[in-house]
């Protein structure tokens, strides 16, 4: 039976001089999974990716691809391809030649590789650009070329190093959906590195949260968001309020004027004064000074309210309420 694990890392470490960039990471990434490595810059996620690609040699531990130990293999002997953060397109080659590069290196006949390269460009919706140079394309288009250039080799695992980081917001959101589609269609394991928690949550089947060269938590986006294993995860993935000994997410908190009466079906509540109102279009963020000490943020959908209404709530006395099941503890 084929191994169901696309990538397995056991005790992988990497030191640069006295600095431990990666301080012992164990991970299993399943075949066909969209797996994200999320963390702030310097948390070791990119170094882990580069060790899987073969650009860096681990100081210790093992890297396995589909059950095969590849720790000591060069990048060109591994069945993975990378989409680089700066795209790393060859500026002296045309778009078609860029996409063909991997096939050409592997001695695929010219007619065949032309055909496959064109098909790959079609799959990223980039037709008719064959003879252009990378410098003549926009950021989003270059990103697609980089994707086609990697996918055309039909790797077992595609490694993506913050591939959307250089795009503007609108384009980034479009590419998020598109990447997900491409991954589903190609059936290839995607290993995605990002520092953007929203991106990781929206795109991934599972997420590993990195901090200081270690994995803090691995789980589905919902698990990581709703049940953070550590204080770091709770703070890094989304925002959270610390009220007493527990944490509550801002969107789980209901906000009512104190004299408006009952808290509904909520089983926890606290009172306070609105210190700040931040109107953000679809929702409003209320910063509340709690009577019991500390501050909490509550996020309210602007279902029926408008900016005029919510602004008037500053300095009002309010009651915050939430359900016990939405509370979580962190060690």
């Amino acid at each position, binding site marked *: 039976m084929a191994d169901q694990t696309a990538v397995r890392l056991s005790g992988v470490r990497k030191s640069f001089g006295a600095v431990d960039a990666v301080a012992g990471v164990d991970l299993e990434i399943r075949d066909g999974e969209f797996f994200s490595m999320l963390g702030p810059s310097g948390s070791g996620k990119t170094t882990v990716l580069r060790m899987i690609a073969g650009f860096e040699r681990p100081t210790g531990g093992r890297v396995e691809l589909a059950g095969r130990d590849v720790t000591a293999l*060069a*990048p060109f002997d591994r069945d993975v391809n990378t989409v*680089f953060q700066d795209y790393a397109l060859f500026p002296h080659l045309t778009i078609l030649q860029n996409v063909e590069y991997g096939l050409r*290196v592997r001695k695929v006949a010219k007619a065949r590789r032309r055909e496959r390269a064109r098909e790959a460009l079609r799959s990223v919706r980039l037709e008719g650009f064959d003879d252009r140079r990378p410098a003549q394309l926009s950021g989003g288009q270059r990103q697609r070329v980089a994707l086609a*250039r*990697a996918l055309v080799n039909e790797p077992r695992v595609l490694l993506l190093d913050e591939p959307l980081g250089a795009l503007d917001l609108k384009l980034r959101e479009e590419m998020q959906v598109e990447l997900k589609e491409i991954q589903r269609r190609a059936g290839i394991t995607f290993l995605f590195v990002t520092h953007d928690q929203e991106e990781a949550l929206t795109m991934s089947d599972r997420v590993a949260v990195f901090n200081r060269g270690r994995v803090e938590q691995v789980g589905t986006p919902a698990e990581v968001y709703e049940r953070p294993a550590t204080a770091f995860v709770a703070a890094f993935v989304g925002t959270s309020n610390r009220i007493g000994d527990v944490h509550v997410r801002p969107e789980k908190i209901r906000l009512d004027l104190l004299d408006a009466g009952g808290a509904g079906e909520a089983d926890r509540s606290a009172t306070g004064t609105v210190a700040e109102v931040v109107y953000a279009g679809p929702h409003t963020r209320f910063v509340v000074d709690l009577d019991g000490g500390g501050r909490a943020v509550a996020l309210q959908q602007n279902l029926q309210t408008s900016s005029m209404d919510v602004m008037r709530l500053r300095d009002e006395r309010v009651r915050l309420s939430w359900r016990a099941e939405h509370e979580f503890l962190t060690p």
Partner: protein
Amino acid sequence: MSGLAPTTLPGRPASLRRRAAALLHRRPLVRLGLLLSAPMLWLVVAYLGALFAMLLTAFWSTDTFTGEVDRTFTWQNFQDLWTGEVYRTIALRSVAVAAGVTVLCLAIAFPMAFYMAKVARPRWRPYLLIAVLTPLWAAYLVKVYAWRVILADDGLLNWALGPLGARGPGYGLTATVLVLTYLWLPYMILPIYTGLERLPDSLLDASGDLGAGTLRTLRRVVAPMVFPSIAAGSLFTFSLSLGDYITVKIVGGRGQLIGNVVYDNIGAANDLPFAAAVATVPVVVMLVYIAAVRRTGALEEL
């Protein structure tokens, strides 16, 4: 219209300096003129002027009896140059030496530059650069005479090679190529180093990631991308070698290059017009060389 504010701001007297600055701000042409007057003067008078004087002189002649320069137009110098077998041999030999030096420089400079730009730790790079530049701080003559000592019959090279049963090249054209390579090597290393430093590491990673081994990455990615830098370096090594006449005098044995012919005609033969005619040869060779480099598109990317 009486409500308009006064034109000078309070507390800021319009000093002469400020007025001049304001004038320059308003008149871009005056600004440009000031910026470029000195360099243009130098370029036109001293630089191109000298070249033009040389070209003009090449069409004059020297009276063999009096040694006076006769300023009447004649093609005679170029005719002598074209028909003289010995001049053609010397010109071809000079081009061959310059080409040899360039190829040798490239063969040594590329691995060195690659090590400096891509392999060595970044904090070592400035020191390696200084090491490459150090020979340029020493006087030319001192370096060439040092090589004369090294290459001498009982010199350092033969002493070192002796136990292996081999001998150095002695004085001659080979020695000239060797010493010129030593002299001009930094001019090849520096542009290639700069070119390689500008080459993003991710391109090398990407090539390996797509299945290419080291040699293929060098051939398909690195070489085409640093070609403009190599072309720039070769312009230096080629032209500097083509114009040299001292090295060949000191370590070249009886070999002669174009530069020696020019020098001998200025000095011993006292035939300045003919020397000028000979001196146009390397100029023409360089123009052809630059045109060839230009055709490859390398100059646009510099």
